[in-house]
């Protein structure tokens, strides 16, 4: 547990990172650095988006798979790395 914390800390100390969430494939958060309400909200919404994105990529080419998803908005950037069972969501405030 410590070790995973360490790795997450490494990401968190990067400049501009606002929060990190780890969710299962169903959208249930496991670890988070944000408050519960936001975590749960992000988890639910992003899980759907990732599913959609993954399906899109695979439909084009079944050999292909989604590796990284970045959503850039006016205020911040949400980066999602999906895996087989989990995904990691990082919210970052880019160069300002």
């Amino acid at each position: 547990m410590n070790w995973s914390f360490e790795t997450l800390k490494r990401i968190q100390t990067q400049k501009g990172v606002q929060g990190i969430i780890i969710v299962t494939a169903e959208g249930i958060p496991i670890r988070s650095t944000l408050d519960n309400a936001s975590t749960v909200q992000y988890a639910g919404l992003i899980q759907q988006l990732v599913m959609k994105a993954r399906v899109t990529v695979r439909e084009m080419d079944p050999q292909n798979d989604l590796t990284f998803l970045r959503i850039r908005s006016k205020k911040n950037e949400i980066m999602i790395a999906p895996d087989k069972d989990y995904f990691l969501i990082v919210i970052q405030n880019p160069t300002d």
Partner: protein
Amino acid sequence: MMASKRPKSTGDKKNDSADSAGSSTELGLPDDIFPLVLTSGTQELFECRVDKDVTRESPYKILRKEEILKDMKTRAAVSDFHPIKQTVLNYPGEELLLMFDRDFTCGQNFYLVLTEESKKRILEPPVSAREDTAEGTSLDSPPCKTPECQPWVSLGSEREIEEESVRDSRPRLKYRISRVRRKFGAPVTFTDCNAQESKDKYTECTSYDDRKFSIERMEITTGVQAVPTLRSISTQTRWTYPRNMCSQYEFREFTEEEKENIANSENFRNFVNSVVSRFEVAAQQNMIFDVFFNDWQALHEEDGIFGGKVETHLKEYQSFTDLHFTKEKTISDINWHPTINGLIAVSVMEKLSSEGKINGSAKLLQNPPLIFFWSFSDPINPQLLLECPDDVLSFQFCPSNPNIIVGGCMNGQVVLWDVSAHADRLQGTRSAAGKATSANECALPAFQDKRELNTPVVRYCAVSGVENGHKARITDVQWLPENFEISKAGIPVENKAHICVQVITCAPDCCVMFWDIRLPRVTTHSLTERKPKVTETPHLNRSDVPNTFKHLDLSWKPFIKVALPKKGTGAEYSPLKFSLRDNINDNQTGGSTETSEQNLEKSEGGTEYALLRASSAKQLKPLEDISTRFYIGTQDGEVVYTDWKMEKDNDSGRLLSTKPSHCFLVHDGFINSVRRSPFFKDIILTVGGWTFAIWKEGVMNGPIIHSSCSPKKCTVGYWSPSRPGLFFIGKEDGNVEVWDLLEKTHEASQTQNLSTTQITCIKPWIVPPKQHFLAVSDHSGTLHILEVPWSLRSPSYNEKSNMAKYFEKEVDRLIFLNKRKEMRAKEKKDKEAEEQKKKMEPKMPEKLEEQIEEENLVHYKTYLAMEKVILKNMGLLSDEEPALN
């Protein structure tokens, strides 16, 4: 001939013909022929053999009656003619005609014609074999003849009628029933009787199911309609109907345990490993370079408005002069009203020299100096006039309550006004010029001329005592912001009331004073001090003066006096202007109406200043982040950086002010402006003499920017409220210079002439959303309002950060410069020291020279030896060669 058979009626018609062949009542067959079968024997006998004697063409054969009879006698029943025995006997004629019916139309192959007439008919006129229309021919023979009534011929239909009619089969029976006479008319009692009780009272014939009996409906009369094939089908569909339902859900979450479990699983570990590397790359990418930055759009912002003339000049919006009052007077200070847009207050004072002032002091009572309130809506008549005890050099609106105004006078008094009574009038000045005359108008004896709009004059409601205040003219007055207040020791503490309660003033009498508009705490000493002055001048009793500050009137004292002793010498600095670091009111613009409105609400709730008490310093929390150091500009052109905190003097136990930490003599005239930048808290602009300088707090080496000497004196300076790198400098010749540090630093980026006399004050103001004004007053008493064009009011892209970088560069330059100076000084010193050393050296040289020569010789010898050895080793020198000498 028709061969159809008529159905035999079941009547009792005695027609014997069991022989189907020989029925004479066949339909269609005339009665006069009779089909006959003739055997071949008979045929031979009568010579009517088929196809020999009788053929189709000649089917007749005449037969004698006698022969037929004879045959009948001989063969009796076997004879073929037997059936017609009687007919033959009855035959009138002698000869009978026998016809051959080849086609069996009558049923047999021969037929016998039974009447003479038909015989004739057949024989003589050749009649076709088919005679079926015997009846038909008879019908249409008589054309158009009304039928005559024929007697009824019964054809047997009476029989049916008879069958149908109903007749009594027996005579009808008659019964007579009578009752005994005595029973007639007897009273009858009826009782109810239940039919079900006794079975003998009634009989019933119940219906029963008779097995044997069944009626089968044989004949049904129905109507039939042809319709397309219909099919009835039913399906079950989902019937959705609205139903009130609510569901409550909450997000699925894992318990802590589960989370731990998952986190420790191998899967998770792998996942984190694989994912983290991606993320590091991504996050760093973001930091390195902003991919989504829109360069094109950013470029656009710098350009500004395209097309048309680019306005860079300050446009004159309005100008105010009052011909009555401002003749030969100058404007000393300008202040925009913090909350009401379009309202500006101007303090006017005599511009006489000191001699002239002494001479003209008699006029003072008659023409008391005034502060004018001008509104944009009325350029001719001022909205309000504030009466001052003496020329006011500087004044300020209270930021928390714009109805309170504090001013500093020529004679060292601090004055307070309360214009709450006229607040409505002032508020209404934005619309058409208010014509309502205020109830508080007063006509001072000097003002004889009547005017249409009688501008109210408000008297000051409190002045400080002459002996307690400054000894020289007060040149700068500022309110302390409402978030903190200063305790008696000079420590900034929190301000619980959140209204401005303290004022700072400075005067060339070498002190900076802190005043509190509340009454001091009740202490034992203050009882004697707070005795109201008995000598009440008549104006105190006036009813139109509000009583807000009555508690202070003439007894007002500062609670802190900061002295400014000079370092080294016993003299003191004479401050003219000062600037605090945390004074948020210093650069107030119209944008901050929110906080001031809140404050207005609070104050409208009724803060009774008389009831406020200065709180003890122990009760309030000291604020750490307020800096107690401030900059002062002095009369001699020095910029002094000092602390107002009072220290306890160890010797006397009194609170003494600290000595100023830094002093810079930079300007060559008295300093007339010390202003903090609204964007950078530690950047200060000082204007004095022929130059201006920009300082950074913390950099104590000197000003980071110091302008070159301009040909004319700089009289006033002010930062622009919207652009970090812009400020305005007013000049002696009536020019207003716009300096843009990002554009040019050696000269003004723009100069504009406004009047012929010197500029006395510049104050910018922002009327949200987009109007920026610059109020400029000149020595002749005119107030100009200028509109700041877009190019001067909207900051360029990233201007603030550019300015910050610029200042840092300048600071670095300064530091570098200082270092170089030091280095140079050091070098110089070293050089001098060396020279000194050199000068001292000639005493020793004789001794040393010989020694040096000897040493040189020794060195040379060793060198030679070394050379020899090396050359030997290299094989270049043979042993025999003599050493070089």
